């Protein structure tokens, strides 16, 4: 690397040395330019105009050209350029439209040489002829370019850009008479300096202003342009028509572009707004910058390579009032940090995954696909020595196969299509969805729905039988998502286990909360009573004995019934039963077939007026009375949702979220919800379930999601007569002034849904056509075609 900074230059014969460094200027810089000796740099801005000497360790201010007491607008520079043949000659473009030349050889303090006040508006750019000593070119906002001979007082010739502002002018390095100019309307023009009447060539290079251009130092006819449309384009001018040979997409509008010396495909850019970094791109690799300089804190306004034959030193001036020298070896290289990885699904659900070998090898326990195919990802096609990032990057490719049959996602599609998410009372929705899930053999899900129904709505309608049914089969269902890849060696029961742990935790906290008598109650009961904010002794102290007894009775009746409830499920491990059966069902069952309950219900009624808050007892009664505190179970339900989401079943999570709506929404943070929604919508769209996905979007309450429906809602149609796109309205063609879509039935313009026969292409309002075809099988247009509506 040391070699890099000791490049012997072709011109001076001396080596350039230096380090990455910066110095503070007094004011923001607008432009910089380097002297041909590569040892001095001039910085110009609205209120700064100085020459700095570039020394090994630092910049040293050499000369302040801004002299005089009263700052003149002539010194407010938009651009500055140092003559590449004459070390004493500088030119500046002032914001008030004046072009000034400076002669450093003048003995006086004021080095100002000549003043050209021919432009009416701000001069954006000045440029010296690369070989001719006295020729200066300027481009201005007023749409004119002027060529000055410094030996004369006026311009030699004026080139008109047809009233469009000129943003940049550059003499071609190779062709003596040619210069390029770029314009605010996106055009680039090529001029012959001898022919001011018309340009040689003009083409539209960018959408919006072209801020800058730069001729390639070696490749004749290569011109790089940068525009407000965030693109850098490289044009080949040698052909008959200017041909775009490369295009680099940056993240902000491009303010300056400069080819890197000695590197054929490299160019440096900086941006006009927002982005403060300087990038060096390899134009053949337009997505990742080859190097990046991040020193500046505000937008970079001027960049210059220090020496025309040295690729390692870049100078830059910025609005943050600093002048920087960047060394290429100190640049950060985004390529280094990027970990190229590829992931792709095959037609039958196989998954191929390629990554850098070094990355893959660190991960153990994964068996790459038979044969361990390896091949390089990068630049297999050609090896170019000019490229810094060649080198065989080898990667590992792994392919994971699906187990036959396990990849079927039909349950997902079925569920998505059949679930009801809104438009009916909660209880019905839950029942419906439970039924759907059950029919698809997803009993755990079905059970969850049933429980939700019990939790959140009055249980009167639930039939005990259906409950038993769902509970009975509850834990028999596998977790349908678990068996996807053998790569994921997740135990099917993993989710349940975590769940179990958690519910154990619950129990613990519950027992702390409640007094000893509650230990009699099952886990489920604990959870139910958890929310009570009145301690148990309140009851014991204040309430009459009867109710006290009632309280005791509660665990009692739960106790004898417990075995009754559990017994039919002997076939299943008890653990699972606990896990999979959060609160509701048991009590519901109580209500349905236990005589105790009716009694206690009556008591509850008498109790209700006594206290408005929830005592332990009234809480357990509240289950029957739908007087549940709204957020009573929410913590649990939220956990349940997270559980499903973690398992990969976002469908369940989102469906429940939508169905329950306000009841749980506030307990789950916005971002998680958004995440679920987006994943679910993404999945739905992959299965082409557009309607469902739209419904989900519509029902979502998250702002980020619901605005999805406001995006790209445009539908483009072509006129049926002239086949041109109908840009303004969908029913009247601008070109042929005809209404494109007439209803064959009512002969009016169709502005909404238009349905047409694919056989005869007649059609009309959906309603009309439907009605028509009910009565007749012929086309309403009278064409004789037998239309079918399906």
């Amino acid at each position, binding site marked *: 690397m040391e070699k890099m900074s000791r490049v012997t230059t072709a011109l001076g014969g001396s080596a350039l040395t230096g380090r990455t460094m910066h110095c503070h200027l007094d004011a923001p810089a607008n432009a910089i330019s380097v002297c041909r000796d590569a040892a001095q740099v001039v910085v110009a801005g609205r209120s700064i105009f100085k020459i700095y000497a570039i020394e090994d360790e630092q910049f040293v201010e050499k000369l302040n050209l801004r002299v005089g007491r009263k700052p003149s607008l002539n010194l407010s520079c938009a651009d500055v350029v140092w003559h590449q043949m004459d070390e004493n000659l500088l030119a500046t473009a002032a914001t008030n439209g004046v072009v000034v030349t400076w002669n450093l050889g003048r003995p006086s303090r004021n080095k100002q040489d000549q003043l050209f006040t021919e432009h009416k508006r701000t001069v954006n750019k000045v440029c010296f002829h690369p070989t001719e000593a006295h020729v200066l070119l300027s481009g201005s906002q007023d749409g004119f370019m002027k060529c000055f001979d410094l030996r004369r007082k006026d311009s030699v010739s004026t080139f008109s850009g047809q009233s469009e502002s000129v943003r940049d002018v550059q003499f071609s390095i190779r062709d003596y008479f040619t210069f390029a100019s770029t314009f605010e309307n996106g055009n680039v023009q090529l001029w012959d300096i001898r022919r001011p009447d018309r340009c040689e060539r003009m083409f539209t290079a960018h959408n919006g202003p072209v801020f800058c251009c730069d001729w390639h130092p070696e490749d004749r006819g290569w011109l790089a342009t940068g525009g407000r449309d965030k693109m850098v384009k490289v044009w080949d001018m040698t052909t008959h028509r200017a041909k775009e040979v490369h295009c680099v997409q940056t993240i902000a509008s491009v303010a300056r572009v400069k080819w890197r010396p000695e590197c054929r495909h490299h160019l440096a850019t900086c941006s006009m707004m*927002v982005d403060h970094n300087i990038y060096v791109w390899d134009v053949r690799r337009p997505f990742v910058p080859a190097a990046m300089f991040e020193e500046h804190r505000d937008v970079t306004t001027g960049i210059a390579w220090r020496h025309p034959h040295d690729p390692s030193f870049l100078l830059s001036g910025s609005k943050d009032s600093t002048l920087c020298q960047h060394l290429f070896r100190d640049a950060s290289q985004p390529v280094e940090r990027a970990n190229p990885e590829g992931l792709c699904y095959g037609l039958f659900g196989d998954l191929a995954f390629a990554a850098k070998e070094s990355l893959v090898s660190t991960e153990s326990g994964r068996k790459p696909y038979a044969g361990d195919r390896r091949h390089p990802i990068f630049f297999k096609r050609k090896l170019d020595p000019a490229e810094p990032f060649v080198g065989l990057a080898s990667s590992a490719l792994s392919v994971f196969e699906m187990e036959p049959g396990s990849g079927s996602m039909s349950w997902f599609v079925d569920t998505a299509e059949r679930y009801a998410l809104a438009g009916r009372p909660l209880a019905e929705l839950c029942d419906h969805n439970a039924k759907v899930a059950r029919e698809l053999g997803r009993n755990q899900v079905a059970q969850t729905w049933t429980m939700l129904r019990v939790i959140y709505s009055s249980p009167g309608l639930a039939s005990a039988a259906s409950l038993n049914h769902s509970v009975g089969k509850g834990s028999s269902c596998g977790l349908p998502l678990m068996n996807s890849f053998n790569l994921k060696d997740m135990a099917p029961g993993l989710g349940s286990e975590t769940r179990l742990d958690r519910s154990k935790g619950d129990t613990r906290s519950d027992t702390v909360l409640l007094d000893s008598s509650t230990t009699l109650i099952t886990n489920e009961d604990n959870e139910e009573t958890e929310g009570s904010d009145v301690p148990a002794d309140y009851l014991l102290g204040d309430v009459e004995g009867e109710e006290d007894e009632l309280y005791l009775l509660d665990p009692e009746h739960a106790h004898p019934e417990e075995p009754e409830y559990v017994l039919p499920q002997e076939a299943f491990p008890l653990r699972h039963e606990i896990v999979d059966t959060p609160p509701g069902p048991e009590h519901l069952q109580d209500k349905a077939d236990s005589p105790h309950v009716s009694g206690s219900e009556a008591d509850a009624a008498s109790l209700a007026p006594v206290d408005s808050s929830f005592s332990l007892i009234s809480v357990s009664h509240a289950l029957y009375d739908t007087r549940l505190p709204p957020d009573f179970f929410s913590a649990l339900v939220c956990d349940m949702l997270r559980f499903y989401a973690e398992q990969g079943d976002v469908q369940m999570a989102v469906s429940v979220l939508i169905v329950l709506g306000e009841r749980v929404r506030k307990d789950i943070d916005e971002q998680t919800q958004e995440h679920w929604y987006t994943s679910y919508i993404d999945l739905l769209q992959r299965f082409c379930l557009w309607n469902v996905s739209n419904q989900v979007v519509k029902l979502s309450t998250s*702002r980020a999601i619901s605005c999805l429906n406001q995006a790209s809602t445009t539908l483009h149609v072509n006129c049926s007569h002239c086949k041109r796109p109908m840009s303004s309205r969908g029913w009247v063609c601008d070109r042929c002034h005809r209404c494109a879509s007439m209803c064959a039935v009512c002969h009016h313009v169709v502005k909404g849904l238009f349905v047409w026969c694919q056989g005869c292409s007649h059609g009309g309002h959906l309603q009309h056509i439907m009605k028509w075809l009910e009565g007749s099988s012929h086309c309403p247009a009278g064409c004789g075609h037998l239309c079918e509506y399906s």
Partner: protein
Amino acid sequence: MNRGGSSPSAAANYLLCTNCRKVLRKDKRIRVSQPLTRGPSAFIPEKEVVQANTVDERTNFLVEEYSTSGRLDNITQVMSLHTQYLESFLRSQFYMLRMDGPLPLPHRHYIAIMAAARHQCSYLINMHVDEFLKTGGIAEWLNGLEYVPQRLKNLNEINKLLAHRPWLITKEHIQKLVKTGENNWSLPELVHAVVLLAHYHALASFVFGSGINPERDPEISNGFRLISVNNFCVCDLANDNNIENASLTGNNFGIVDSLSELEALMDRMKRLREEREDEEASQEEMTTRFEKEKKESLFVVSGDTFHSFPHSDCSLLSSDFEDDMIITSDVSRYIEDPGFGYEDFARRGEEHLPTFRAQDYTWENHGFSLVNRLYSDIGHLLDEKFRMVYNLTYNTMASHEDVDTTTLRRALFNYVHCMFGIRYDDYDYGEVNQLLERSLKVYIKTVTCYPERTTKRMYDSYWRQFKHSEKVHVNLLLMEARMQAELLYALRAITRHLT
């Protein structure tokens, strides 16, 4: 309505005038519903607009396509004198109200209401109250700012500054809004809001400047509903102006030979174009010229009111000075700090706010990039609109044809920016002085800074030989220049916040 111009301070002046107008209106409530002038504008004879209209099918196409209300409102009718412009105007307006954007539809209309309320432009308020409700806005919000979410309320400060003294907007204001918290604005949302605010401030200028009449569509019976349902005063410029007309027309305008006036103007323009080369003012002089223009704009309104309205019926007004609060409440519920108004940029001698150097933050380079980045595509639409209005010309002046009006248009545009403290290095502000006569300056200043005070008298008093369509053109220029100035200040603050 500057007849109260004798009052010392600008703020008082402002209050008084608002007040007066409201009082006047109250007294003549009955006549309000039956204004004397018909047609879309109180300033422009109906036939001028209508004639132009019937010719133009294009306008109808445009309206059908881009109008949010689905009918040809008065603004559109007046603007349709310049169809080319109308298209880009409607497109950008439609985009910011109806198309993809970070803000929900009702919010957009509410922001429009807030913006229009700063200038008490009941025409726009009424229009957007309807739209607001139509797009599903919460009716309660219409009761005033106290009823809207804090988030929207927070916009009030920036609304106020943008409307009257945009140069005061700093990155701190932006930071306050985007600071993470419950009511924070995301940057795209903020940019959307800023664009809306600037648009509607500027549009209010146009409405007042062109004397747009309240909508009086019989089917929609907007005018009727305004009074009964929304309880707004109708913006009855027409009415006011008619009174004035009756009493004052031709009163104290020494009928200058306006034809020679026009000739003189054209002569000056011609001379400016030719003289360019030999005339070479020193930099100091250029600077002073800008300062002078800036300073002079300070006296334009107050001074002129005094001069040109010597017969002002102050007696009528001063008696009603007291009870402004009750009357303004209709509109003022959408604003806070109603006393906050335009203050001349040049006035604060001591603080001396730095002049905005146009070249350091231009719309083309900087504003566009930022706006387009945060609120995609609006940049292109606005860009097109600014370009359109800046380059719009028919090469005519009054009865003369083949005139290059570039200098005149530029003078108008830059004069507006000058009043907002934006200076172009490459512009000689001496031109403004030569090209814009005093009555025009009064008009410009009123329309851009205190649009609610515009009167037909002001409208009539300048360029008497010119066609109405040309005056509408002037209004368009003023409107866009103002919008751009506001945007530049706001976007510069956002840029500073970002860096």
